């Protein structure tokens, strides 16, 4: 019997103390009360005015009590489902960390030629098939734009390409609220009706405000559509320290969080208790190249710090990792992916996206994706930590083996070696001679082989012909309207 024993059941990590979280949240509330946000949609401004906000044209100042109220109303957990089975596969709550891709990259690297090409409906479909095959990826974003179809309705084509090729939960982007309405209709077809979709959500809508402190009509109407339909929504400010928010990390967090919280207030006023996932793609502007950096250490730090705040507020959170500023899948891509994935796994935002991005989010790479799948496996092993009990301490086994013996033949080793250690599929641990005789391949080359093998052989679970046909009908309806 042990008394007063505290054990770490996983590694323990934090960037901010509770006091620091409280101070940053307080600064965000101060920003909303004092400076406010601009909202470019009259209907939303009216809702806020009625709730007690102070309105000055487009500028809306939000009293803290409305933020507190929204934080009380919003669900503390969101569950997402497999689109084929309806199984509840993702529980966005606490420190559960799930991983998935990013959306809407204009380019992708053709795995057959190595060429950087414009993404298309086909590349989106192929990418989703690869994501579906990878065990450590939990959800899907498009990893490309359907650029080969009428652009005003590309979003319906894109969702169709995705849902045909994966049964994993999907986070969707759309041109506008009408796009979302069509996609929700399509998801209802897949789920088997609106009621089933509400009960077992298999999509999450994605919308973003415009930093600093602005909410465009498109993003607000999307946000309100999600609230009214009770479909989970990610509302995610994309801020650049030094450019759209202050150059300091604390100021970046305070300003970005203010954008999220103002979205949350409107969302909860639109429909109390609708599911909401706090976003936040907070990084720096690189002051030499002016890019929005996807690999900067400050990016990972800010995401981890925001995760502390999300936990402090008890809100599900959308994190970012597995992405790089490198233009190719090289050492740099490896470093940036490894660091960001490990930090997200440790910090525990729930829905971690952008796995598979290279070139600061402009290009999708399937090699990067399968490598990240492996990194997530490693990171999950690390975060699982070290189990300490008499059996794992193995003092008796050590005594039985004694000085100079070895543990290879013990039943203890046989019992534990697989559960205590992680085994790779792409990472190479061969002895030098065997690596050489297998062709001296780099990780990127092995990753390419894996991508090709998935593309050539893997088939996702199919939707029924009837469902496929109904989906097509929605897409075609939208396309014909757009031509008129």
């Amino acid at each position, binding site marked *: 019997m042990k008394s007063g024993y505290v054990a770490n059941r996983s590694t323990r990590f934090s960037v901010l103390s509770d006091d620091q979280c409280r101070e940053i949240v307080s600064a965000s509330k101060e920003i909303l009360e004092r400076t406010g946000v601009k909202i470019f949609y009259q209907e939303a401004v009216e809702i806020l005015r009625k709730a007690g906000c102070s309105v000055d044209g487009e500028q809306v100042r939000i009293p803290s009590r409305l933020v507190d109220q929204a934080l009380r109303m919003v669900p503390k957990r969101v569950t997402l489902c497999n689109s084929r089975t309806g199984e509840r596969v993702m529980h966005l709550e606490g420190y559960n960390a799930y991983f998935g891709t990013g959306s809407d990259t204009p380019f992708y690297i053709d795995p057959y030629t190595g060429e950087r090409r414009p993404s298309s409906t086909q590349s989106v479909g192929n990418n989703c098939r690869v994501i579906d095959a990878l065990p450590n990826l939990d959800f899907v974003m498009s990893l490309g734009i359907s650029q080969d179809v009428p652009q005003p309705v590309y979003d319906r084509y894109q969702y169709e390409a995705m849902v045909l090729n994966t049964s994993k939960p999907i986070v969707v982007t759309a041109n506008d609220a009408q796009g979302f309405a069509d996609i929700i209709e399509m998801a209802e077809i897949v789920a088997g009706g609106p009621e089933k979709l509400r009960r077992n959500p298999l999509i999450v809508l994605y919308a973003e405000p415009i930093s600093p402190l602005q909410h465009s009509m498109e993003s607000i109407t999307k946000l309100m559509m999600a609230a009214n339909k009770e479909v989970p929504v990610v509302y995610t400010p994309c801020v650049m320290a030094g450019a759209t928010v202050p150059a300091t990390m604390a100021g970046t967090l305070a300003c970005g969080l203010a954008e999220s919280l103002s979205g949350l207030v409107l969302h909860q006023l639109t429909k109390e208790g609708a599911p909401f996932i706090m976003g936040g793609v907070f990084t720096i502007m690189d002051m030499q190249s002016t890019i929005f950096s996807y690999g900067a250490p400050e990016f990972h730090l800010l995401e981890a710090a925001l995760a502390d705040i999300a936990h402090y507020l008890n809100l599900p959170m959308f994190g970012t990792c597995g992405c790089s500023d490198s233009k190719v899948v090289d050492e740099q891509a490896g470093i940036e992916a490894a660091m960001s994935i490990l930090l997200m796994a440790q910090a525990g935002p729930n829905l971690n996206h952008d796995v598979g991005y290279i070139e600061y989010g402009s290009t999708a790479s399937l090699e990067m994706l399968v490598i990240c799948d492996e990194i997530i496996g490693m990171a999950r092993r690390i975060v699982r930590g070290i189990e300490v009990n008499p059996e794992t301490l193995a003092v008796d086994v050590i005594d039985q083996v004694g000085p100079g013996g070895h543990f290879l*033949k013990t039943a203890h080793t046989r019992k534990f*070696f697989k559960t205590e250690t992680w085994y790779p599929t792409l990472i190479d641990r061969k002895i030098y001679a065997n690596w050489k005789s297998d062709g001296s391949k780099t990780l990127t080359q092995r990753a390419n082989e894996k991508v090709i093998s998935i593309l050539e052989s893997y088939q996702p679970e199919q939707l029924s012909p009837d469902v496929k046909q109904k989906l097509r009908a929605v897409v075609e309806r939208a396309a014909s309207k757009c031509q008129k």
Partner: protein
Amino acid sequence: MSILDEIAQGVIEGEATKVADLTKKALDTGVPPLDIINNGLVLGMGKVGEMFKTGEMFLPEVIFSGDALYAGVGLVKPLLTDGSMPSKGTAVIGTIKGDLHDIGKNLVGMMLESSGFTVVNLGADVSPESFVQAAKDNNADIIGCSAMLTTTMILMPDVIKLLESEGLRNKVKVMIGGAPLSPEYAAKIGADSYAPDSTTAVEVANELV
């Protein structure tokens, strides 16, 4: 599944008790002993070797399979006339004098045993004289010599010189291994072969005998 298949499967699963029980049962039902060995026990172990090479099986599992193999062999062996028991040969192995690093050498020993060699493991800190004496005493086909340090590997040529002066060099093959070694070093000191790991050591030993 025939009882021989079951025995082979038991070896693959590393279930020593099960293999022993099945072997007894096979003997009781009149299966010829040599058949049990060749088409049951050794067949299973051969599959284990292949699966280890392709990464489907892991070392502790291979070791338990080796134990299961010998649980069966131990029962059958007394029933065989001398000389009919298949053995690939005898290997005397050890870590060279001045060096206590022996985990790699132990691995080689276990893998050689599992693949059908008789192994005499001399342990660590073994002098060239002891290597050669043990080779004589056990009528060995192979000496396997391991070193982890550049300061100890330089004693390896002494083993070979001693074998020559004792007139045993033609009879006993010498294979070497260990982190600082290379095929070039093996060639330089006149060893017959170099193995970078235990799996290769088995292949090399098979070629040498």
